Each structure stands twice: as structure tokens, then as C-alpha cells.
């Protein structure tokens, strides 16, 4: 068995074990009702078992990482697939640390799905270990990317803690304006998460089933010498095209649900290379998100936040608030070191300037400023509790945008990914 | 003790104000930006076709027409005779025309200049340094620099003789040193 196939198998094993651990964590909390034992003993026992599963999954994940490293000859953090799986690994690492400090199984219910979703999303990206272009050949790459991911992992745990706190403290029985706004906010956050899950699941399934569609657009390019050239640019779709790129022709398209032609064409002002495909992805995400959300609402027969809240009963809200804050406080120096300082060192070495206001660099700064504001706001009594939890949720969105949005939406020196 | 504190406070705030001024100044006055109309024409020194070194500041006090050109640029060639005519006419009135050639070989430039009978100084920007300094992207580009060293007019593209004449007259009329 080659290193590459062994590492893929390890990742698959980790993925499955993480899912099992998640289920056992849920069981440890919900199963209290049916257990013959004393509830807290039940939770402790099953919680510990779930934690061991999570740790075992983490070991498999580490195996994936190191065998891939050995097999390809360079640290596996150089493309979107590798980086995302690494981030998931770091999130598990942060989770393990926070769990060992606080020993609260509920954290597992929220932290494990984050890791699982990220691995699933990563699998959509091309996974081939690629040869590195000269700009990436430096050991500072390893140091910068791994440290930044470690910091972001703690922010992810902080996000999980913040979300838990909100779910615990939002009053679903109350009718006051404030309570209503909070309920809507929580529901919207859950909807966004549902949308992401729907997007990831659908992309994964379509990709796995081998779906593809291809379009070709004629682009006129002017090169540095001033010569104009018309080239054919092809765009590959993983999801069935509802929207095709503006001014393009179909090269090939597998039919979906009996439809073999795109329904619309992207508007003329969307003339970026991948604008049509991205619009299609967004449309799919929203549609599937709405569908999945509707299904979940029907099953739960009430708002999703209300349905999840019982899991958190019995948790001290101030403890949840503290978990969230503590995770961010641990992660902030790591993030500063990795995403800013090591990034500056690497940029200075590779491109001769430590800071160039590149969109990715600016968004790392934005993330840093956001969490700085968060930490300073915590000094003020009125800001602890719910406002702080909201900030930890939004902060993680900022982190995700920095990782995904900048790469895919905004161009710059940093865009190494291919999706 | 209280008064000491006040002095320290004042000193700190003063230091901050100075730093603030430097911050804003650094943003507003960038040395590397190409000069615009109304700005001082940056000084430079270049070798001429005659083999001697010429500086822009040598001509301070005179009206300088700085023309960036090349033999591969048809409009540049077309306006050359007009520039030469203007030079001969206004030379006595402290008007000088400097033709800055864009990185062509000595032979190419001298044969062209001889062919057309150009008498105003021709400078060779062999390192492409002055073109960059003046932010010249299109050819021909001409700067009319007043006696005070300030850029009065920047013209991109071929100039009509009337245009050259008008600007010379305007600039001689005003801006006494």
C-alpha cells in the first residue's frame, strides 16, 4: 500500500470515528433520561468514552498528516484540501485541550461537527499533492500556516462555546423585543450553519457521484506587450448548473433531474473568470439550505434553537461563557504569532516586503483587530455574557472568510487554491 | 510632584503631536510620485549627445521645455521641426528646449538629429531613470517648466506649433524670477 492511499484511508477512518464520537457525546447527554444509573455518572462515563473516541480519531488524523508528509516530500499544507484537513486537525487538538481543562461533554457535541464539516468541505478540493512553485518553497511556510491554523482552531472552539452559551441563555418562552431579536439571531446563525452543511454535503455527493458540467467562454486578453488575444476559457462545475457563466457555451453537461440545459445565464456585469460558477454555488447553497432547514424544522416541530436548547440544560451559562473566552484567550497569541508575525517573516523573505496590504494579509489583520476589540470589550462588565458570545460567533465568520472568501472571491498573491 | 506630572504629560502630548505631523507628512508628500502640474520639476543630470553632463538646475531662471521623445515615435518626429523653430525664435529670450531621448543608441539619435538639423540640447536617458522619475508613459510627453522651476504645463501627444508658441508666450509673460 502506498503512502498516499494509506494516508487517505487514515483520514477516512478519522472522519468516521469523529462522527461516532459525536453521536456518543450526544448520547451521554440525552441518554441520561433512560439510563438506569445516576444521570451525572452516566454523563461522566459516556462522556469519557466519547472523548476517547475523539482522541482515537485524532490519532488517525495525525497518521493521515504524517504519512502524507512523508509520501509527498513536503508538509501537507500547500493547497486548499491539505490546509482544510490540517485546520480540522488543529480544531480537534484545541478541543482536546479545552475538554481536558473543563471536562464538559457538551463541548464535544458542538466542536466535533465543526471539524467534521471542515473535513467534508476539504474533500471537495483537488487533493493531489502538487509540486510547489518557488514562492512556496520555504520552511517559513510550514511554520506560518501551522501556527495560524492552530490559533484559528482555538477561535473555532471559542465559536462553539459562544454558540452554546447563546443557545443556553436565549429565552424561547419570552415575548419581549430583546428576546425575540435574540431568537431570530440564533435561528439565523443556525440556518447559516445548516446552509453550509447542505452545501458541503451536496458538493461532496455530486463530486463523489462523478457529476460534472463544462462551459467555454471566449475571453479577450491583453498581454504586457499590448497584443490582444482571444482565448477559450473553460469553467468546470461540480454542481448542476442553474446559472451558466455569462456569454458561455456548453461544452458538456450531465443531465440532472431530467434537465439538460442551464436555467439562466449570469448577468453581464459578472464577468470574472469564475463568477458564473460561484454564483451557481451560492444559489445551490441557499436553495439546499432552505430545503434542509425546512425539513429539520418539520421534524423538530419548533425553532431549531429551541430544539437544541434542552441539551444544554444543566450547564452553567457562566461556565460556557468562560470556556468561550478562555479558548479565544489561548488562541489569540498563537494566532498573532502565526497569522501575522510568521506571515510577515515569510512575506519578507519571499517577496521582499513584510506587509503589502494584500487582501489575505488585510483580512488576517481584520481578524486580529476584531478579536482585539473582543478582548478589550470583555474588560467592560456589560459586555460579558451574550454580547461576548455574539462576537465570538461573528469572529469565527471573519476567520472563515479570511480562509475561504478571500481565496475564492478576491484575487491576490495568495490565491493558490483552484476552486 | 503634581506640577512635575503636568510637565511630563505635556511633553508626551507634544511628542505625539510631532509624530502625528510626521505621519501625515509622510502620506501627503511622497518623494517617489511622478510630478504633477504645479509641482516642482525634479532635478536630474544626464549625459548629452555632446558627451557633456547636463543638469536641469543648470537652466534655472530660464523657461525650460522638457520633451521626451524617441525616433521610433512618429508624432515625436513630426513635432521636432516645430520645436527647433521655436528654439531658434525664442532662444534669446531665455527659452531652452531639452530633448530627452528614451533609451536609444547614440548612433540612432545622432543620425536623426543631424538629419533634421536639431540644435537644442539632446539628452540621453540611457538608464530609463528620468522617464520613470517624471512618470512618462506615452510619447511624446512635454513639460513646460517656468522660470521658477515649477511645472506649468504637461502635454501628452504631439503639439501644434501654435500650442508651443502660446505656452511660451504665457510663461514668459508671468513668473519673473
Amino acid at each position, binding site marked *: 500500500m502506498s503512502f498516499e492511499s494509506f494516508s487517505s484511508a487514515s483520514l477516512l477512518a478519522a472522519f468516521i470515528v469523529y462522527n461516532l464520537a459525536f453521536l456518543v457525546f450526544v448520547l451521554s447527554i440525552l441518554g441520561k433520561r433512560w439510563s438506569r444509573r445516576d444521570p451525572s455518572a452516566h454523563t461522566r462515563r459516556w462522556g469519557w468514552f466519547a472523548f476517547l473516541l475523539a482522541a482515537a480519531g485524532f490519532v488517525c488524523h495525525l497518521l493521515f498528516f504524517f504519512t502524507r508528509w512523508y509520501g509527498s516530500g513536503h508538509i501537507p499544507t500547500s493547497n486548499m484540501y491539505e490546509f482544510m484537513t490540517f485546520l480540522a486537525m488543529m480544531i480537534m487538538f484545541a478541543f482536546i485541550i479545552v475538554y481536558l481543562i*473543563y471536562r464538559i461533554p457538551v463541548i464535544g457535541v458542538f466542536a466535533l461537527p465543526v471539524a467534521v464539516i471542515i473535513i467534508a468541505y476539504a474533500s471537495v478540493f483537488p487533493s*493531489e499533492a*502538487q*509540486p510547489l*512553485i*518557488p514562492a512556496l*518553497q520555504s520552511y517559513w511556510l510550514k511554520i506560518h500556516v501551522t501556527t495560524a491554523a492552530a490559533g484559528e482552531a482555538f477561535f473555532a472552539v471559542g465559536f462553539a462555546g459562544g454558540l452554546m452559551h447563546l443557545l443556553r441563555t436565549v429565552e424561547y418562552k419570552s415575548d419581549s423585543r430583546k428576546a425575540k431579536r435574540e431568537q431570530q439571531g440564533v435561528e439565523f446563525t443556525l440556518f447559516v450553519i445548516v446552509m453550509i452543511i447542505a452545501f458541503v454535503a451536496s458538493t461532496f455527493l455530486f463530486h463523489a457521484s462523478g457529476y460534472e458540467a463544462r462551459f467555454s467562454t471566449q475571453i479577450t486578453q491583453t498581454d*504586457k506587450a499590448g497584443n490582444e488575444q482571444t482565448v477559450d476559457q473553460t469553467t468546470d462545475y461540480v454542481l448542476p448548473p442553474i446559472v451558466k457563466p455569462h456569454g458561455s457555451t456548453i461544452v458538456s453537461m450531465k443531465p440532472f433531474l431530467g434537465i439538460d440545459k442551464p436555467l439562466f445565464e449570469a448577468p453581464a*456585469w459578472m464577468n470574472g473568470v469564475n463568477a458564473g460558477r460561484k454564483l451557481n454555488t451560492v444559489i445551490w447553497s441557499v436553495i439546499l439550505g432552505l430545503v434542509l432547514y425546512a425539513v429539520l424544522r418539520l421534524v423538530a416541530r419548533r425553532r431549531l434553537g429551541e430544539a437544541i436548547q434542552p441539551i444544554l440544560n444543566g450547564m452553567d451559562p*457562566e461556565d460556557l461563557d*468562560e470556556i468561550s473566552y478562555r479558548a479565544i484567550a*489561548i488562541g*489569540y*497569541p498563537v494566532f*498573532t*504569532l502565526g497569522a501575522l*508575525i510568521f506571515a*510577515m517573516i515569510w512575506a*519578507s523573505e519571499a*517577496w*521582499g*516586503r513584510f506587509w503589502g496590504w494584500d487582501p489575505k494579509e*488585510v483580512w488576517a*489583520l*481584520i481578524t486580529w*483587530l476584531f478579536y482585539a*476589540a473582543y478582548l*478589550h*470589550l470583555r474588560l*467592560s462588565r456589560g459586555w460579558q455574557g451574550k454580547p461576548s458570545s455574539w462576537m465570538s460567533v461573528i469572529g469565527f465568520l471573519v476567520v472563515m472568510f479570511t480562509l475561504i472568501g478571500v481565496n475564492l472571491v478576491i484575487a491576490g498573491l495568495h490565491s493558490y487554491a483552484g476552486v | 510632584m503634581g506640577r512635575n506630572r*503636568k510637565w511630563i*504629560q505635556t511633553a*508626551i*502630548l507634544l511628542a*505625539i503631536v510631532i509624530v*502625528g505631523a*510626521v*505621519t*501625515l*507628512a*509622510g*502620506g*501627503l508628500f511622497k518623494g517617489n510620485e511622478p510630478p504633477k502640474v504645479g509641482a516642482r520639476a525634479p532635478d536630474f*543630470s*544626464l*549625459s548629452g549627445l555632446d558627451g557633456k553632463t547636463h543638469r536641469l538646475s543648470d537652466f534655472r531662471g530660464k523657461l525650460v521645455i522638457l520633451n521626451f521623445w524617441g*525616433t*521610433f515615435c*512618429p508624432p515625436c518626429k513630426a513635432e521636432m521641426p516645430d520645436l527647433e523653430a521655436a528654439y531658434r525664435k525664442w532662444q534669446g529670450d531665455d527659452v531652452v528646449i531639452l530633448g530627452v531621448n*528614451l*533609451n536609444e*543608441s*547614440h*548612433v*540612432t539619435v545622432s*543620425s536623426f538629429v543631424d538629419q533634421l538639423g536639431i540644435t537644442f540640447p539632446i539628452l*540621453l536617458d540611457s*538608464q530609463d*531613470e528620468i522617464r520613470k522619475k517624471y512618470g512618462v*508613459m506615452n510619447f511624446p510627453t512635454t513639460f513646460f517648466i517656468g522660470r521658477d522651476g515649477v511645472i506649468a504645463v504637461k502635454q501628452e501627444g504631439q503639439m501644434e506649433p501654435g500650442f508651443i508658441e502660446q505656452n511660451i508666450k504665457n510663461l514668459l509673460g508671468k513668473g519673473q524670477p
Partner: protein
Amino acid sequence: MRIENTKCECGHQNYAGTVLCESCGKPLYDDHGSEPLEMRYDGVARRSQRGNPTWLDRIWNFFSSVKIAIYLILITLAASVLGTVYPQENTFINLDPSTYYKQTYGTTGEIYYLLGLSHTFDSWWYRLLLFMIGTSLVICSLDRVLPLYRALNKQQIRKHPGFLSRQKVTLTCDIAEPGDQTSQEQWVQTMASVLRKRHYRVHTDGTALMAEKYRFSRWGPYINHIGLIIFLLAALARSIPGWHMDQYMGFIEGQTLKIPNTPYYLKNEKFTVDFYKPEEMSDKFRQRDLIVPKMYETQAVLYQCTSRCGTADPVLKEVARHPIRVNDPLNYHGFMAYQFDYKETPRLISVTPSLRNKQTGEVYGSIELDMNNPQKSYQAGPYRLELKSYFPDFGLDEHGQPMTKSNEPKAPAFIFTITGPGMEKGQPYLYFPRMIDKDTYRQDDVNGAVGQLLDLSVGSMEGVKIAQYTSYLNIRVDKALPYIWFGAAVSMIGLVMGFYWQHRRVWLRVDDGKLLLGAHTNKNWFGLRKEVAAALGKAGIEADPKTLETGRKTL
């Protein structure tokens, strides 16, 4: 100065604005309340809280406010987001900003440009924001760190009961008989040794005790701020003339160029590029038929000009030599040249044709013609060739006259005047190094009689020098860089100090057999409660961490 009654009942005179007595900790206001005490800065008076502000004080107070600092951070954050919406001007090499945004992005692009957002990070208001953050850093820190240092330096062991019972972690219980002084003191000693084992520095005073650890962690945020201030000042220092330069230059192989605004000249001696071989790439990459560079390098030589600088023939002295690769720049006393990019730009550098007698076959000699700046006269055997005209990119204008279409040697043409045996009066001779031009413009016909006699041509490719590549280097000077790293390092140290340790203090006193304990930390109350409960447990008192905390909202 306004007189205020700030003398505590313990006899200590406090500054106006002090919240908790500097000596015994008794709350000076709100002394009959039951809410947990405001322990920030240990209750010491801060500069900005004193009464009767002058205009100087007002400015000081403005910048020492954390609220203002947070606003500044958030505004900077928002501005930065705007600066990423469209590509910034500093990424353009040849585009004109005044038209680019409108053309590419329409109306929103035009608005973006007009608002100055196309150079957000370079704008005066963004710099002003950073400056204000820097000011806030200075003043916030000074305002707080000095009083805090004073307060933490002189701490009392025996605290006022009101102080202890209103700490966020507190415990009141009976531990001994009221009259039994010895067992009370003994218990205090036991507690002291338990706390010492947990790395506390303990001071006792009979039946009172003060334990403290990791005080250094309090200085963390201030050290972080100092680091950031140094960082910002270093970034600002780059606008000092001579401290910062950043430009891109393309060097054709063999070419030496002057670096503007410096006495340096740099030569690209040779450029090499290695591509990944098909075997080294994965299947998918091979399918895409891409050419991926593995490594490219410029063999560069740096010269310094000693005299006649800026002229056509300066005197140069070699000072450095280095193979420049992407992460491996040339570095000479702070002058840096980084490998940025390259392009395949085949270009004629020079030709070395031989002058030959067409009829006898005799070769008279060869001359080297530089395409960039050819000499004016050459000697080939008995013949003298004077170069009259040179057209790098030969063409005929609308009048049918020779001209050059550009200044690049794409189709070079030389017009000589040849004098020598058989032609005492100089004869014109047109020479095209490239065969295709020679045929197109019918060189032999044009040269007439001379063309029948003499032939100037290159025998083989050996006589032709071509440069294959242009190497793009990024030339930089950045004197402020060491200070940038220093500031960043200091900032990191401060962050680590502040976040990975917490300052914990435990005070207790036993009066009449009753224990009164209070504890405080700046972060991580969870850990403090656990530790105090564990310590109490070791000293014989059962306490649950949860019950130690006052002021908690109930479940």
C-alpha cells in the same frame, strides 16, 4: 487643588478618586453595599479620573479611554474591509487608476476611486487612524500602568473585612474556638505552607495572610502595547528619506542597469530556470500540460559607481555577487534584490559578422555589433566601417524612408560608410543581421556595386548572442526592518505573559475563630476557584469551588 476627604478610617491618606483604600482595601465609596468590589487597577486613582480637567486633561482623558480605543479599532477594521473590495492601486504596474476602476467595475468602481478607497491603506485618514491607535496605546498604558505598579508594590497583608467579604471569591466560616489564638495562628501557617507548595509567595502577619503569584502577568498587556508602539514607530520611520525603497526592474541577460536614487548598478550575468519534469508532476498536472517552474535563479553582480555616475560611462566597482532565487535575495548592507518574476523574451544582444570578399573569398576580419549601443566605427582588416545610422526595428515610413518602429532590436539594420581598398571615397553599405530582413529589403540589390564586392554576414550561430530571458527583480531598502521585528517580538512576549499566566492573590484573616477569606485574579476565575478550594481542602476545610463565588447569577 480641591480638598477632598480621602483619608481612610485606617489612617491612610489616599489620592482623590481612589476607590479602595491603598492601605487596607476598605471601599471608600459604596461602603455599605454588598456587590462584588470593582477591583480594576486595585481601586487606585488614575490620572484620567481626577477632577477638574483642563484642556490638556481632556485630550489625555479622551485617548486614555478604552471605549475610544475600541471605536478606533473597529473603524480601522471597517476601513480595511473596504480596502479589499477592489484591487488597490499599489498592485498596478501599468494601469491608469483614473480610468481602470470605472472601466472594469462601472459606477461602483468610479465611486470607489473618487472616495480615495483605491488607495485606502495609503490615504491620510488611514494613517491618521493608525496614528490615533498609537496615541491611544501610549496614553492608555501610561494612565494605567504607573498607578497599578504603585498599588501592587505596596500591598498590605491584613485587609479590611469589607474588602475581603466583597471579593468575587470569598469564604466565611468558623475554624476554631474564639479564644484559641495559637490554633488560629497555626492554621494560618498550615494554609501558608499549602499555598507555598502551589508557587504562591506568602506573607503572614499573625492571624492574617497574603499570598500572591504570577504578578508579572499583569504587565503583559502593557509590554504588548509597548511592542505595538515600537512596531508602529518603525513603520513610520520608513518615510525618513533613504530608509525605504521599493521598485521592480527587469534585467535582460547580460544587461547592467543603474538602480535609480542609488549609486548601485546591477548586472544580470546569467538567468537559469528549471522546470518540473513530467515524471515529477502528478497525473492531473501532466494532463493539464502545464509548465511549472521548479526553480529559477539570476546570477547577479552588484556594482558601486565611484565616479561619473549617472552618465553614459560611469566607473564601476564590483561589490557583491549572488545567485538570486525566489526566497534567497542578494543582500549588500541593507540593499536587497529579490527574485520576483521572469519572462521569456528572446532578444538579440549582439552579432559578430565577418567581412568577406565575395569574389576571392578572403575574410578581412570580424566586427562585433552591439544591438543596444553600437560603436560608431569599426575596423575589419584594411576596411574601415563608419556607422552612420542604426535602426533597431527597421521599417519604411509613409514616405518610403527608413525609420525604426521601436527601440527593441527586433529587426536591426545598420548603415555603414565603408572606406578602404577599392573604395577610397566612402561607400554606403546597408547590413541586416537577420536573413529574413535581408531578403525582405533586398539588401544585395540596395548595396549595388559594393554588395557585389563585399559581404558582411554571420557565418554560424556562434556569431550571434541572444538573451533568452528577462529577469524581474524587486529592489528594496528597508532600514526600519530590524525595529519592526523587535517591536513584534516585544508584543508577542507581552501577549504570552498576559494570557498564559494569571495574577492570583489570596488574603485571609482569622478573627475570633472566624475565617474570612477573599481571593482575586485578573482572568480565569474557574482556575482560581478550583485552586482555592483545593488549598482549603488540604488545610482541612471542605469547600466546593462553585460556592466560593459570590455575585453569580443563579441557574
